[in-house]
């Protein structure tokens, strides 16, 4: 029950009235709620615009929050993330252009629905599904995160490294890109994280005699370049033409759609569970949405009609994507291992504000953790209201031609990259990462493991070296007790999952074809 008391205090933190200075005007208002609305509106816009996504949107705005209180700052940034999750659905349904990778599966049935003049219905279903998926995940976080954190308090350096190993092994084992490309992307990230000062000994490494490399590479620059500039280059190559469907959405359509939704309760529950699972293991929202869509198509009695505007085909991926997007925060808060690139950027923010994500956060910064969790409940409700009421306005943003949007986004990328450390070299590196991101995407290297490895590199290395110091250099430390051995074993299972699952299906498949 302690969770509910804590959560209640969290709500009090979020709803508290404060004397604040907003753009030079002195006001007395629930500042965190105001921040929440601003964050979600910004997030939806970021989600709608091509080239600006959750991860780099948060990365660009992160430096602006350095002067804010950590609780307000994280509410702003996490609400941008929720908003971006909502926004992706709008472009998918109206324009057949997924604003975010996790909304690709939403286009399969969402756009056909819009073509049939049922855009309002599709949007309402998508938003409501997002809301339900997210709500399920937040309830799960409320109940599970404190338990996971309490359990993780027993972790030593070896166990910590084992958790990182599990996270990255599941990336390689579960990703749809070729495993050695995932591995290469990940190792580039880890290698980039080691440039400059070694945080354990203070000595310099990999600077090659250049002063520019002493501070090392900041992962925010990589995120802005890879996801921002890289995405714009890809969009230019594809020659974007916006041909959108009209979005009529009013109370009547919303209520009519809501009446239909309860019959899909089983789809909802299944998608929520898929989403939460994929969010906690760092597979993330994109595979979750595809998996949920695929299973719904196989299981549903309307399965054959999927792809022609079946409402269930919108419900399944949207529910799973949001459940995964929110569930990704559970391992970030409780273990310090983010479940998605955007969660990784948020984790980077926590480190900048001197908050160490991980089990101790639940003890030392209770107010912060529960304020964040409470803001997830409220942000979800605020988000649903905002997107349901603002769709026509948001669709109008998409009609602004790319010739204006692109340079403005480029400018924000440059501004964002500069403000991270007030360094011009970072702006140059942003462009390098942008071109790198374009080529990586084109040659099927996944970007998420690279970014995650860059964020976690220092911490993974520290855990690895500390564990070895404790064991005087023996690798046996990673199998020295039941706990660390079982996490490592899970890691190896995840690593070789594609081989294992192929073997299982062969064992099962051989007798089936023989009979």
């Amino acid at each position, binding site marked *: 029950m302690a969770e509910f008391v804590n959560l209640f205090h969290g709500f009090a933190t979020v709803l508290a009235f404060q004397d604040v200075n907003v753009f030079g005007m002195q006001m007395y208002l629930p500042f965190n709620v105001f921040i929440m609305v601003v964050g979600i509106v910004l997030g939806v816009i970021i989600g709608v615009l091509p080239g600006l996504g959750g991860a780099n949107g948060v990365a660009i705005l992160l430096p602006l929050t350095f002067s804010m209180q950590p609780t307000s700052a994280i509410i702003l940034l996490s609400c941008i993330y929720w908003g971006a999750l909502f926004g992706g659905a709008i472009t998918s349904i109206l324009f057949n252009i997924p604003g975010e990778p996790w909304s690709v599966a939403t286009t399969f049935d969402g756009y056909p629905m819009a073509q049939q003049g049922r855009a309002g219905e599709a949007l309402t279903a998508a938003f409501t599904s997002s809301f339900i998926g997210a709500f399920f995940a937040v309830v799960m976080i409320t109940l599970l995160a404190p338990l996971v954190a309490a359990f993780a308090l027993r972790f030593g350096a070896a166990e910590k490294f084992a958790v990182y190993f599990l996270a990255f092994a599941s990336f390689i084992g579960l990703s749809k890109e*070729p495993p050695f490309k995932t591995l290469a992307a990940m190792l580039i990230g880890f290698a980039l994280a080691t440039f400059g000062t070694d945080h354990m*000994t203070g000595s310099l*490494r990999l600077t090659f005699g250049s002063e520019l490399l002493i501070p090392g590479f900041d992962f925010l620059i990589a995120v802005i370049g890879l996801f921002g500039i890289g995405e714009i280059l890809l969009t230019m190559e594809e020659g974007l033409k916006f041909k959108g469907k009209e979005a009529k959405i009013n109370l009547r359509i919303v209520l009519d759609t809501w009446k239909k939704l309860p019959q899909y309760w089983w789809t909802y529950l299944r998608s929520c569970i898929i989403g939460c699972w994929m969010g906690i293991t760092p597979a993330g929202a994109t595979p979750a949405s595809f998996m949920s869509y695929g299973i719904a198509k196989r299981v549903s009695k309307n399965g054959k009609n999927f792809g022609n505007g079946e409402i269930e085909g919108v419900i399944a991926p949207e529910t799973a994507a949001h459940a995964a997007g929110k569930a990704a925060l559970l391992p970030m808060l409780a273990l310090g291992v983010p479940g998605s690139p955007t969660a990784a950027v948020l984790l980077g923010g926590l480190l900048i504000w001197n908050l160490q994500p991980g089990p101790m956060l639940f003890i030392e910064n209770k107010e912060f953790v529960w304020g964040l969790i409470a803001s997830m409940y409220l942000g979800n409700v605020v988000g649903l209201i905002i997107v349901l009421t603002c769709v026509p306005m948001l669709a109008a943003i998409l009609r602004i031609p790319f010739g*204006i949007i692109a340079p403005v986004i*480029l*400018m924000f990328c440059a*501004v964002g990259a500069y403000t991270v450390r007030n360094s011009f070299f970072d702006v140059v590196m942003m462009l390098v990462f942008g071109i790198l991101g374009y080529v990586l995407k084109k040659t099927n290297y996944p970007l998420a493991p690279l970014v995650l490895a860059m964020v976690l590199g220092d911490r993974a*290395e520290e855990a690895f070296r500390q564990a070895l110091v404790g064991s005087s*250099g023996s690798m046996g430390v990673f199998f020295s007790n039941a706990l660390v051995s079982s996490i490592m074993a899970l890691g190896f299972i995840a690593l070789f999952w594609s081989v294992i699952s192929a073997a299982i299906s062969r064992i099962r498949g051989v007798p089936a074809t023989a009979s």
Partner: protein
Amino acid sequence: MSGDGNAADQGPAHRYIELVFAGLMGLFAIAVVYGAWRAGIGWGFEGPKAGFFPFIMGAGLIGATAVNIWHGLQGSKSKIFADWDQLKQVGAVTLPIVVYIALIPYIGIYVASVLLIGYFMMKISDYGPVRTLIISIAVPFITFLVFERWFLVALPKGPLEAMFGY
């Protein structure tokens, strides 16, 4: 380097770019291994030395790149990376970005942004001079107000801002 496949007239072969890229990755990995080796990869009084972890990562990257190159060699010869028109489009965006970033230290980020937005609107989207002028000046100006006045975040500024005392 002239292409040897049939697809070379439409665009560079996917396989070719993939192999060049993997090769560059291998060079990066070798640089990491070398740098790590210079920092010390052995066991010191503090435990594993500073180069220990990057050395493992670099060595692993060399291995992964070798496998990727081997896979790349077996890839299809006819698939193209992108056709020339598409690459021209990408180049048409990349070049102005390079110029934009190169100008920032001299004229500041705001004036450079005016030029960038103006260039995109005139050259890529065919806007008339009036609309181009209004938008390309208004957006950086609002950004200026937000950053320099409200959030008090200083961005690179040039001679124009200096004239107004910033």
